[in-house]
């Protein structure tokens, strides 16, 4: 089976600094693989391991962040056989629609595929639509919230976990699925896999190479601002002796 796992590199949240004017300073934030995309990559490699003659390609589109060679080795250490990256200034902070259009064009350039796996949303914008848009653009079956994938002949059977129901769906291939964060626990890359990662093939394209158009974005981002912190009283007592707990409960009673 030919599987494409899509991923995004996002700034490490821990390193993001909130400026005085509530804007975010991302300069010190190192790139990392978006958390939920690790589930997509893991799902792809697990599926490939279960199907003989499978190949997993990791695919990402974006700006300069994708030039980071450590991040490239990082993704390849997690199982994919090859990496495809579309790097273009036009894709710098691209929103979902432009991202999906570039992914669709890149998938076309990669050639044939059976299944594309995306994560549920990225750690930065968490827009939760790229995979769905991608499937619709490619005019193939696409479904979100997939919590289990079983490969079959020319199809996959998936479980889709919704708010109160689970659907078991038969999805004809080729298709796109967006997996949930609890479909698997991504394996921590082994020493061996890390050292092997640098030897795997990497293909880099520009937007022109894949023939994608990037104009006419339907949505524009106006601002990203940290919320104003609610003022809290911060009355903290140390110790759990009876009188301290009693005082704590007294405060509690007052707001009941």
């Amino acid at each position, binding site marked *: 089976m030919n599987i494409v796992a899509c991923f995004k590199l996002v700034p490490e949240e821990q390193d993001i600094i909130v400026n005085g004017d509530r804007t975010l300073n991302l300069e010190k934030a190192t790139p990392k693989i978006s958390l939920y995309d690790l589930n997509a990559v893991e799902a792809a490699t697990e599926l490939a391991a279960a199907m003989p003659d499978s190949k997993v390609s990791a695919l990402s589109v974006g700006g300069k962040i994708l030039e980071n*060679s*450590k991040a490239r*080795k*990082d993704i390849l*250490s997690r199982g994919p056989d090859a990496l495809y990256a579309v790097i273009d200034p036009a894709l710098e902070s691209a929103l979902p629609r432009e991202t999906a259009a570039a992914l669709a064009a890149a998938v076309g350039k990669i050639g044939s595929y059976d299944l594309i796996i995306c994560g549920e949303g990225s750690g930065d914008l968490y827009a939760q639509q790229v995979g769905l848009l991608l499937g619709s653009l490619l005019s193939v079956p696409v479904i979100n919230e997939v919590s289990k994938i079983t490969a079959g002949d020319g199809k996959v059977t998936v479980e889709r976990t919704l708010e109160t129901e689970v659907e078991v769906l038969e999805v004809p291939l080729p298709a796109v699925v967006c997996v949930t964060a609890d479909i698997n626990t991504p394996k*921590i*890359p*082994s*020493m*061996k896999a*890390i*050292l092997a*990662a*640098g030897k795997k093939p990497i293909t880099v394209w520009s937007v022109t190479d894949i023939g994608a158009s990037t104009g006419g974005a339907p949505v524009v981002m106006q601002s990203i601002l940290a919320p104003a912190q609610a003022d809290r009283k911060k009355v903290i007592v140390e110790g759990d002796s009876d009188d301290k707990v009693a005082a704590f409960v007294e405060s509690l009673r007052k707001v009941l």
Partner: protein
Amino acid sequence: MDFKLTEEQELLLSSIREMITRNFPADYFKKCDEEYRYPIEFMHALGENGISMLGVPEELGGIPADLLTQMLAIEEVGRMGAPCFLMMGAHCVHNMIDFGNKEQLAKTVEAVATGVPAYSLAITEPQAGSDNNMLGTTYTRKNGKVYLNGQKTFISGAADYPYMIVVARDPDGKDPKKCFSLWWVDPKSPGIRINRLHKIGWRMVSNCEVFFDNVEIDESALIGQEGNGFVHLMRNFEIERLTIAAYSLGPAECAFEEAARYTNQRVQFGKTIGSYQMIQDKLTQMAIKIENMKNFVYKVAWQDDNKQSLRLSSALCKLYCSQTAQEVIDDAMQIMGGVGYTEDCRISRLWRDIRVSRIGGGTDQIMTYIAGRQIVKQYAS
């Protein structure tokens, strides 16, 4: 001089961090320590991830890595608060590559791949500590079999590891340089009795007295050349000294970081204690010591990777790091105040564990002895 880690090294270290953060929280080690339990799950995880096989040749299923990378891995495990002093798998394999036979090597690799050091190394005896010429455990031959008799003590992992290497003397040997041999022993063999010692630290591994009472082994249990026991062990002692230096560095960083964070949080006399210059002075001295230890460990590892002799530098490095790490961890405890002395704070465990770096693997004094002689000799003419 290039101090930059390679991308691979950075990824290896972040994989170690991810594994410990995700699966082995401080509580896990606290519990193992309290229960005097070998952290087998953690050791298996080191095996599964390939960390225990770092530096073992690929033909043996290992993961090629220079000594510097191996030391970085030990340091990172220690920095995360995990018992890095248990990481000696690759060392076990290297010994067997150097002087073991095929079967001994295969058994070693098999164990180390699961994360557990294959064997304990039984040298020390009640009357022979620093002075190992005094070893009294003997091997004798009768009807084509070999018999071990005597007693060892302090043996790390004797109750945890699958095999044991015993250094024993040929009672008829005349030349003290040629009368010690190494023997491969199953610690469950009849005639072996193992008795755990009670220690203030290193509680996650056993240290035992081992009694040998006519323990019967085959000739094939001989490791390397008969009479060459110490010659075999010598070169690897140097690596062991460097390794013990790395065992010291990681925990010192762990304690330092924990204490430094605390200085931002703990308020006394209306200010965070970090705002007091006496505390800042401590932190500054600790930071300098950590830098020095790092540089020393990396340099000695680099020397080995570049085929230079470690004879002097490994002794200096062990001596410096084991003493200095103890100072750093002690200062970290001081910064934590009473909290640092409780078992809820892992610095107290590091404090107990670090002390033995100055005793095991050759005491401070023996390091001085080894190094001092060489220095004097260097300037003899």
